[in-house]
């Protein structure tokens, strides 16, 4: 995975829960591409069209609260979301996102500072978020090396495959 991500921002509010990210009725879908077609549709029917070419999602407090469904971060990832930056995350969502290889960064003040359509560059390794539109830079929480390793390997399974091989 590239340590620098550049894309336009789409901004949502506080407490975006996993039921609006991906409603329960789609949990029988197994193909991640299929899941991606329904990401956030109950909040914005047009989201998937906007996200297609790659976006950075900005959230408020408690992003991803609710159920443990990993299908929620999967749906975001396959809809075109390259990274989620939020004021704070629900813990299961945070772990799930890392485990499936979707970068997540916590950053206080992000939801006020970044507007819809702003051009953003994220430096994952250092947690630095640069807004090219308003020329401001924000410092997010740096991910610990253990989590960065999982992300750079492309998720927990690839990371485990590697670790298990080493142990052989």
């Amino acid at each position, binding site marked *: 995975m590239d340590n620098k991500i550049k894309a336009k921002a789409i901004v949502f509010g506080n407490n975006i829960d996993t039921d609006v990210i991906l409603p*329960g009725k789609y949990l*029988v879908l197994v193909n991640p591409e299929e899941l991606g077609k329904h990401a956030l549709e109950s909040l914005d029917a047009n989201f998937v069209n906007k996200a297609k070419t790659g976006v950075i999602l900005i959230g408020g407090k*408690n992003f991803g609260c609710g*159920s443990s469904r990993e*299908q929620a971060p999967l749906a975001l990832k396959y809809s075109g979301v390259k990274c989620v930056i939020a004021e704070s995350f629900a813990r299961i969502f945070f772990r799930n996102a890392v*485990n499936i290889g979707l970068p997540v960064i916590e950053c206080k003040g992000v939801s006020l500072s970044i507007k819809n359509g702003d051009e953003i560059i994220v430096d994952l390794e250092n947690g630095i978020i640069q807004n090219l539109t308003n020329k401001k830079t924000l410092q997010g929480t740096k991910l610990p090396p253990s989590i960065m390793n999982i992300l750079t390997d492309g998720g927990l399974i690839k990371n485990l495959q590697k670790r298990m091989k080493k142990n052989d």
Partner: protein
Amino acid sequence: MNLTEKILAKASGKKDVHPGEIIDANLDMVMIHDLTGPLAVEAFQKIGTSKVWDNTKIIVILDHQIPAESVKAAELHKKMRQFSTEQNIKIYDVGRGGICHQVMPEQGHVKPGDVIIGADSHTCTYGAFGSFATGVGSTEAAAAMATGKIWFKVPSTIRINTKGKFQKYVTPKDLILHIIGTLGVDGAIYKAVEFTGPTIKAMTIAGRMTLCNMAVEMGAKNGIITPDETTNEFLTGRVKKMPDIKILQNDKDAEYEKTVEFDVSKMEPQVACPSSVDNVKLVNEVGNVLIDQVFIGSCTNGRLEDLRLAAQVMKGKTVKAGVRTLVIPASQEVWKQANDEGLLQIFTQAGAMVCGSACGPCLGGHIGLLAAGETCITTSNRNFIGRMGSTKANVYLASPATVAASAITGKITNPQEIKV
């Protein structure tokens, strides 16, 4: 150390642990179900190990979309059965178990002091038995099935100290709604929530499960209650060997991030209004809210004691015309007991529909979805937009007593005002 820290220290082979520390914990139990299990199985197969770490410490439960509501669901169930057979893992299939969080303790898979993960956010329910239990996603469940280990950041703990006796028709559900209304849906993110005090001491296992079940609705990692005689009584005969609970007590100098006090003695019935669990009002303050559907069930309030309470309110009465009422006992065991006690008869005669044990309408995947513009009052735990069907439906959360009273009148009603 407090109870959560003690359990995590033991599980990671340390003398003590402190909030913020990252540990590798050995697991006592892993649970997956029909919606999170298939992804976990797929991930497990990719890891490249052929056998799970310990087949006696993994449980598969089919409960969310049972009986299969579509060919897609049927395929997923088939996959789970195959995996269970291949790996020789205990599976609770249709008609054999019920909702995962009821079945796990009922069938003796939860013990005080255990570290348990489940691929379901309400796994925190098992804290009611003095275990450390938390929800994870499918990939992490897969990694746990392969290795028997998981990393945790040791949480800081918020203590909820309670006192007082509940008034008639005020229940642990009202207490937890009131707590969430006070602390907010992000009031305990990443943290442990420990429930203490005389009210908890006097509370039944069912009530304690309701409290711990909803800890995740304020973002908590786990809910927990010190095991005592009540815990012993419930688990004896269910678990193979009861651990010594004397060592599972808080130290005298146990530390908490903060303590919040609640007195339940004057508490009134509470309702969480659409579309956030912390949008909590007194039932007498919600105004004239007409309802279309009523649901009594789920891992929050589908236990025998909940059904008894609802039946007490509904006995000899009929559900208001135009309202549909669904009653779903949380497990086969609860179903049988409710049947033996004549509760199901009371519901059926009142004009309710009693369904087989499953998650049902709670997650809007199967059974009793809502149409646009419809309103439902339910004993379950989430009222998010689209949770129970249409994104334009309204969901209110309340206790079994309030929900049953509302079924009778056709609008949100204080159970204390119903003549029994």
